[in-house]
């Protein structure tokens, strides 16, 4: 009888378990705030709207349609997962890669230009996206390492520079009458990622490609690199204390640049697997950086900055983002999901405090229990 509460407690004290509870709390409070906002806007349909957001593709009554849109959500989530891995990887090394959005945009530019202008096959396009995005990430890293430029600010500047340059570049491969780039399916079929039969699983949704699988493999690779290799250990050590790492003979400047390059490459990979599936065309008059990179930040922190956690959190964030399109548009707008995910990021800032509070609470309870036990013994 005495053993049971003890076992439960060790679970509560487990840092990973605490993170999961913290993230779940963030989600619940985030959704609650979203619900309140909906209530304020229009009390009549708030309940229905929040259910629509949570249901996402289940909105469709027919199973075929639901499976199909489940596939679409997965494709988007896989790109989001890559962005969140990009943020997470840098974060583990003590860098805040807010530039995932810009690196993603650059990746889009590279892969679509290679595919549409030069007619290259998908693997070359994907490689181009990764390499160019890695270089852009590397610029931020180098500026940080050699010139002490705050990576957040240099990343933001590169986001805007990237957006404008990609718009300029892709304007060369756009359709005559629309501001969108030519569709890959009709211009260069070889640039589309192979389906490998995955499309048949999702009611012939041709956008479900090996990209989805690749992104999950990448999540595992990132986890292995960070947790199980000497290289990952070195990077994390650099993040904890740059000077100590230098003292131990690690090349801290190289590590910072490499980290940002890998982070950039991951974001570029995300751009590649998304746009090379042919699901969307780039609009060359875009005036804001796509939200994918910023949602990546939400997913990274909601997943407790753990690559495996990021798989689930990315899916969740994408699920509610896609779900936002099903709210009753005569009352609400689709951006309500953006609001919820923004609140979730905000709440993630409190997870550390929550863990501290929980530990202190557990300590106090233990003390009380111990005191009680002593008293009982004396009597």
């Amino acid at each position, binding site marked *: 009888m005495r053993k049971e509460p003890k076992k439960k407690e060790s679970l509560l004290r487990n840092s990973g378990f605490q993170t999961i509870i913290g993230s779940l709390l963030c989600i619940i409070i985030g959704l609650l705030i979203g619900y309140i906002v909906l209530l304020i806007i229009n009390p009549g349909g708030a309940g229905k709207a929040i259910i629509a957001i949570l249901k996402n593709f289940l909105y469709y009554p027919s199973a075929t349609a639901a499976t199909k849109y489940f596939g679409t959500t997965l494709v988007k989530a896989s790109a989001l997962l890559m962005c969140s891995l990009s943020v997470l990887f840098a974060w583990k090394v003590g860098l805040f890669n807010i530039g995932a959005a810009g690196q993603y945009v650059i990746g889009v530019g590279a892969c679509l230009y290679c595919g549409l202008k030069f007619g290259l096959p998908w693997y070359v396009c994907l490689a181009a996206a990764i390499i160019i995005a890695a270089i852009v990430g590397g610029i931020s890293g180098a500026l940080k390492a050699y010139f002490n430029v705050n990576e957040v600010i240099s990343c933001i500047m590169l986001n805007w520079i990237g957006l404008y340059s990609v718009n300029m570049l892709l304007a060369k491969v756009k359709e005559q009458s629309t501001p969108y780039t030519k569709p890959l399916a009709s211009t260069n079929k070889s640039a589309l990622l192979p389906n490998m039969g995955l499309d048949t699983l999702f009611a012939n949704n041709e956008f479900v490609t090996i990209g989805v699988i690749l992104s999950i493999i990448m999540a595992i690779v990132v986890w292995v690199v960070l947790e199980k290799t000497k290289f990952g250990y070195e990077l994390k050590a650099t993040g904890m204390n740059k000077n100590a790492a230098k003292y131990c003979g690690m090349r801290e400047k190289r590590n910072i640049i490499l980290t940002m390059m890998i982070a950039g490459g991951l974001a570029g990979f995300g751009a590649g697997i998304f746009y090379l599936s042919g699901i969307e065309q780039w609009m060359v008059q875009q005036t804001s950086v796509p939200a994918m990179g910023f949602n990546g930040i*939400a997913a990274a922190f909601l997943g407790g900055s753990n690559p495996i956690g990021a798989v689930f959190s990315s899916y969740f964030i994408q699920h509610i983002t896609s779900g936002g399109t099903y709210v009753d548009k005569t009352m*609400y707008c689709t951006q309500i999901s953006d609001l919820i995910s923004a*609140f979730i990021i*905000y709440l993630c800032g409190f997870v550390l405090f929550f863990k501290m509070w929980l530990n202190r609470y557990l300590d106090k309870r233990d003390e009380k229990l111990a005191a009680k036990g002593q008293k009982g013994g004396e009597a």
Partner: protein
Amino acid sequence: MLLLIQYTLIFASVLVLVALGGCFSEHSGVINIGLEGIMVIGALGGALMMKYLPGGTAAPIVILLVILASVLIGMIFSLLLGVAAIKFNADQTLIGTALNLLGPAIAVVLVRAINTAESVDNVSSTVAYGHAKKAFIVNIGKFEFNWFMLIALLVLAASYIILYKTKFGLRLCACGEHPQAADSVGINVYKMRYAGVIISGALGGLGGLVYITAGVSEWKFENGVAGFGFLALAVMIFGQWRPVNIGLAALLFGLFRALSNVYTGFDALVALKLPSTVYNMLPYIISLVVLVFVSKKSRAPKAEGIPYDKGQR
């Protein structure tokens, strides 16, 4: 040429206000990356105030009320950062980023809700405030003088005096340099940091208002403020956290930003045949280059970004 000066001054006013906001916050020891979001929210407050003020209101009252709305809403919004960073020791970069995402999201949801309530077919996120905006502008010949230019100058002067010549300012700076030392002589570090963050919220909100009234008479909130909050941070770093230098840096950045609006008026620039996108990119490129040169010898407040822990030595 006159147009260039006009745009330079108005964009410089935005940058000065927001950069000074960042300056106050960082001198108190809190990094405020969320200025961009604060700007959007402040702009929203001002825009809605302008929208709902009755047409016949006298100009000075319009100016006062609109500024008050932006400043107050900016302050309230900045408290989200203050409470998280000061009370709950949250990561300041993360919270700042959250504010940047929250700001535009709140603005779009709110404006769309208002627009849809007015007419079901209106799903835009645009607020029009044409008539009220005229209160801010005085035409001197061909030059459109905007009261905000004067306000920015006054805020700049006031910031200099407050930061360097008053007890409050010196104490604020102490909290950003060495909070433990400040605490040991009886300064309430938490209070000072709240003050820094709230001032940055007020100035950020005001800056947002100035940005949306510069040149246009309606604002589409989906666009946010196009990275201006971050440009202001670059201005702050370029100005090495000192008000006077910030003022000069803002003029330089304002000039480059203004060029993208008015470069077609200069034959020499048109002759270069650069696409307009290049001019749009220019402020961001310049700020990257500038940061490379000034960041090495950074005079950033030493304790910025570190949550204050009383027990630490």
